[in-house]
């Protein structure tokens, strides 16, 4: 999350909004957002509705929460999909920027 925050302006410059989804409740989200001063949209998903829709549930419960990133273009198409296989399996911001720069 620190990695995303650090370069947040560079996502905005590339026409993107950053949305963070997690299984915690709204109170936990608010506390964390406030403590860290996060600029992203935070979506508490305590019923795992979006997590299930995007296919994160199995690993979430069996192996702990795996990171995942999806870039969706202005037309609503998924243009980058990364499901992490380890806790530190996260694409670099540079990789995300390069995808965003290739979108119309």
């Amino acid at each position, binding site marked *: 999350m620190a990695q995303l925050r650090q370069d947040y302006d560079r996502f905005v410059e590339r026409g993107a*909004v950053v949305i963070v989804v997690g299984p915690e409740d709204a109170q936990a989200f608010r506390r964390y957002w406030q403590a860290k001063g996060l600029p992203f949209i935070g979506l508490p*998903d305590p019923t795992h509705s*979006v997590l299930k829709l995007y296919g994160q*549930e199995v690993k979430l419960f069996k192996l702990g929460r795996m990171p995942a990133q999806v870039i969706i273009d202005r037309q609503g198409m998924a243009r980058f999909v990364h499901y992490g296989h380890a806790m530190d399996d996260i694409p670099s911001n540079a990789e995300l920027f390069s995808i965003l720069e290739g979108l119309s």
Partner: protein
Amino acid sequence: MGTQRAGSKVQLNQPAPDFALPDLNGQMVRLSDFRGRQHVVLVFNRGFT
């Protein structure tokens, strides 16, 4: 909420399943709100540690 089954994964270059959830301040956010306006970087968080 789309036609994908629970546990299915999002396919590259296919429409991303739409969703609607209240944000941390209770304001409803839909993926489709950003259609035609902004790209979305959707991040599934690993937990607040």
